[in-house]
């Protein structure tokens, strides 16, 4: 697998233009953060990459291969897994079974059920949910379900993860834990990450590069320090006087 390239992607829902002419790329091993106010188009961008919906214009490629028109399950097996901002656990299944499904189906090598269970258990251990493995997923707290989202994405064996606000709604302590956990799995599995986050400190700390979306347009891109000083970003975020 090589990098992800998003090329001149546009998307409208009815008359509303959600993304206009977005282009960027993510190299293998890189962590790229995406920031932007609510409605800036961040989650839509993730959905398009993951195959939920198709851009009106432009192309999305993984290496040389275009992802357009591929189903979400196919894209997952090609090595891209996403988490959901609004968590979607398999509530009636055990925490372990949630991840076993990901390991069984997300991995193109089609592991046996026994191997899938081993992989799932290690993904759960990586996010600190090993002791909850046999509880129903619906009994987890929000923080637990956010971790389960990460474990499931990791369990697919994908090495390119799209993390959609995995820290939103968590307490400061939980945010700190999640940060440590993501840094650890990123290093251990040599992950490439594309991260949407509202917790600024978290985003600045993790990202090699940051993209700023505003009303569907990419208004800035650069390393965290440059973004923190970027006049356009400051104006958009803090108003004219900043």
């Amino acid at each position, binding site marked *: 697998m090589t990098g992800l390239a998003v090329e001149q992607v546009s998307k409208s829902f009815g008359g509303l233009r959600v993304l206009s002419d977005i282009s960027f790329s993510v190299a293998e091993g890189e962590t790229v953060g995406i920031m932007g106010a609510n409605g800036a188009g961040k989650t839509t961008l993730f959905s398009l990459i*993951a195959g*939920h919906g198709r851009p009106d214009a432009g192309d999305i490629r993984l290496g040389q291969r275009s992802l357009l028109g591929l*189903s*979400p*399950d*196919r894209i*997952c*097996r090609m090595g891209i*897994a*996403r988490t*959901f901002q609004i968590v*979607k*656990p*398999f*509530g*009636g*299944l055990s925490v372990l*079974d*949630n991840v*076993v*499904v*990901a390991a*069984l*189906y*997300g*991995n193109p090598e089609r592991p046996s*059920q026994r191997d899938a269970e081993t992989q799932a258990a290690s993904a759960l251990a990586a996010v600190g949910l090993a002791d909850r493995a046999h509880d129903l997923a619906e009994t987890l707290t929000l923080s637990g379900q956010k971790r389960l989202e990460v474990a*499931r*994405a990791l*369990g*697919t064996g994908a090495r390119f993860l799209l993390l959609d606000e995995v820290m939103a709604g968590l307490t400061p302590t939980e945010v700190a834990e999640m940060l440590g956990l993501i840094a650890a799995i990123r290093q251990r599995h040599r992950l490439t990450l594309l991260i949407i986050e509202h917790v600024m400190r978290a985003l600045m700390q993790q990202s090699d590069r940051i993209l700023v979306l505003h009303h569907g347009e990419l208004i800035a891109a650069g390393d965290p320090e440059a973004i923190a000083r970027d006049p356009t970003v400051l104006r958009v975020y803090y108003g004219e006087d900043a």
Partner: protein
Amino acid sequence: MTRRRVLELPLLVAVLGAVLPLSGSSYLLGIGFSLCCWIALVQSWTVLSAMAGYVSLGHVVFYGLGAYVVALSWGALPLPVILILAGAVAGVFALLVGLPVLRVRGPYFVILTFGIAELVKYVVILIESRLGEFSRLMFGAPDLPWLYGIALGLAVAATLGAVLIRGSRLGRGLLALRENEEAAETVGVPTTRLKLIAFVLSAIIPGVVGGLVALRTAYFEPMQAFDPTVSFTIVTMAVVGGSDDARGPLLGAVFFTLLSELLWARLPQFYMVVLGVLLIFFVLFIPRGIAGIMRSRLRRSPS
């Protein structure tokens, strides 16, 4: 799941079923026949409706098609071929209607399956009346002990199938998509393909059962072969018995077959009323069914 656990239920059905003919009573054998048919129907139904969560209220369509296949080919082909054909036609029909039908979820799917069963019923009635046939008699159908043996085989096969599928890769994928289809897709589950496989698997045995019941009555008439009561009974048995594992359908089928045996004799018009009342009662108060009550009792009692 250990091998012993997998074989437990199918073996239980097989052993109890094999003992029944020793009674020598053809009345009991008749009840056993319909019990086996219901077990086979409900277990098949759970593959789609309990595991994948797509509740079918039109499963009689497969049963009716199987009966029609048998009525049309009776006398022209040997019995095993006819029964295999009945299952195959039901399976192919599921494959053809599956792709469009499985695009809708929840109550829409329920209504759609009901509508398709009704549609097929009236198409068959139309065809039959054009052919000048109002009902078909089948002469020389096998005796009850033979039919019973086949029905028992189907009940065992359907129970074994339900147990095996639930623990398999396919079953795990179906359970995931039942819980959340979008999330399942996102972790690599090919949801469309899995739903279609489940739909076809849940149709084949009901097709054979329909053919078998037609042979038992030696009679085919569309209003009866495609009677929606069959679909309602399947759903009610699954709800009352519980459908979280393969025990529920067994309990539901036994409970209802015995109940209807008592009611038909005394209060024939009362059957549908009882069906409705029990369905409402269980949905409201015991949503996990009889098997669910047993499970929580076992868990609570110190072992």
